[in-house]
């Protein structure tokens, strides 16, 4: 086969970087292995429910609610193919003109390019329609400023639980409860099994539909492995 397609690629592709890969060794927890092996034995190799398997969604809801004192229901949760898909869905569905990030935003460069929105870094630049990307390692004083000054009628918050350790959550502020999406993943312990989630907000249904249009559901065996691990951990 020839090296090049006979027509030029889409212009957006030239703005993206080729990812680098470094092989790593992983030690999968026994409980995850057992969950996966049992799921294979039980024939759980077909499409799961579009939002993800119920016990894993129930665990995610309980985990978030316990840590942050929130009231998220399992039906507001969608299991995604890793944290990447959760971020991608949120940006594609919710970002109108810009993404605000306070810390390291290198993982948002590509998705902002694909969506064709700005990546901004200053609280002073917040305007209507911005998707605000926050996590537990962002400075609390800046988060407080954002919650006071950003418009909860037009802006959305993505709260990334994979960074920082905090019991604070923007959705604890009633103004932002329905405008905050919580994202997380099991990648710290189950690297390469590609399980993440997005939880809560009044856009949970639309986010779920977007995910479904991309990948239908998340890998069944990985979901059962993740459930095996979290239910033991």
């Amino acid at each position, binding site marked *: 086969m020839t090296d090049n397609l006979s027509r030029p690629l889409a212009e957006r592709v030239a703005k993206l970087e080729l990812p680098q890969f470094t092989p790593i060794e992983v030690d999968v927890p026994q409980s995850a292995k057992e969950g996966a092996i049992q799921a294979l034995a039980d024939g759980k190799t*077909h499409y799961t429910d579009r939002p993800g398997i119920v016990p894993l969604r129930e665990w995610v809801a309980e985990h978030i609610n316990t840590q942050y004192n929130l009231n998220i229901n399992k039906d507001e949760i969608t299991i995604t*193919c890793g944290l990447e898909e959760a971020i991608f869905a949120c940006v594609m569905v919710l970002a109108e003109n810009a993404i605000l990030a306070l810390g390291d935003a290198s993982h948002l460069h590509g998705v902002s390019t694909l969506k064709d929105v700005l990546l901004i870094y200053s609280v002073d630049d917040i305007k209507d329609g911005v998707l605000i990307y926050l996590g537990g390692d962002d400075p609390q004083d800046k988060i407080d400023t954002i919650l006071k000054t950003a418009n909860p009628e037009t802006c959305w918050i993505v709260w990334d639980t994979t960074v920082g350790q905090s019991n604070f959550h923007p959705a604890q502020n009633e103004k932002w409860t329905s405008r905050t999406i919580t994202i997380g993943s099991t990648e710290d312990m189950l690297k390469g099994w590609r399980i993440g989630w997005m939880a809560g907000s009044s856009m949970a249904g639309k986010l779920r539909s977007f995910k479904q249009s991309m990948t239908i559901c998340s890998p069944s065996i990985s979901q059962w492995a993740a459930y095996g691990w979290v239910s033991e951990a």
Partner: protein
Amino acid sequence: MMINPNIPEEIRNVAHDGTALRYALMEMATHPDVIALGRGDPDLATPSYIIEATQNSIRQNEIPVSPIAGLPELRQVVADKLNRENGLKVDRDNVIITTGGQEGLFLLMQVLLNPDDEVLVPDPRYTSYDEAIASAGGKMVMIPTDHNDAFNLRPEAVEQAITPKTKALLIVTPSNPTGGIVTRESLEAIAQIAIKHNLIVISDEIYEKFVYDNWEHFSIGSVPGMESRTVTLNGFSKAYAMTGLRVGYVAAPKNFIEGMIKVKAITTGAAAGVSQIAAYHAITGTQEPLQEFKRIYAERRQAMMDGLTAMGLDYSDPRGAFFLWTNSSSTGIHATELSYLLLKEGRVLIFPGTGFGEQWGGYLRISILQSTDKIHKALQRMETVVQKYRVR
């Protein structure tokens, strides 16, 4: 035909959106006695050699973290398969492993289309193509296909639809939803049109393993001159009855695959390692279960054909895939309403033609993904509903 205003809001509100309509019907199909002839999810068990080999890989800690493009050994055996079975001249670097075929479609549209580029799409179509094309700013242009020639894609219809903005042509063979195939003769003529008009051909071949009677599957990418302008989409879900594992693949020129790797790093990252290992075992193990799958599907297909004929319903010649594209217009009931009635009163889930294009209100897509016994039972239930509501 008009949709009866008395059918529930959750159906009527999404009647214009094929994908949403199909999901709305699936969400209504909660009764445990429902016979599901809707979704294209094989009911057969994933072959045991795949299950056992994957379990052993897990036990032996052989589940790697994959590069974005996929595990090199899986990319290699996929390339080997495409060379051996499909006549494509590809190597490992021409292949990317995706998180299911649907993601492959999404990624390739992102890599291919600039805003306002046109993609020619056979009508009727699997409406998830709409979302993939729209997300890249592209526009769909429908190519008519016809019941009388089993929804084969006619070269002259393709050529008539080409405009200066046309960048690509989508071919789905065997077809979801019609069960038709694009014949080798048509594909060879379409290839010449693609070359003449400098078009890219996206060839979705996810149902290639299931072609019936004396029909054959043919890959347009094997036609001389098409190597640099064909993007072939396929996967493991349908062939090996492992839809939940979410493993697909795309074969294309190297610069295109590099573009897909860039986008995939942003959308979902690499496909799950455990799923790729299962796919590796699937493609490198015995292929005998696929012959048994095909025999079972052929038997069910015949049962469904006989039942529909007895009911007085006409259908297009189902040459491949899992579906009978059935003309229901003789009932006098709009397909969206008929699907609702079949579900509500007959407890049979069947998708209306409108799930695959708004104008297909005179058709149903009926899958054969249930046992022959259940297909017979479903046919009896369907007959009761059709007899009750048929407009005389």
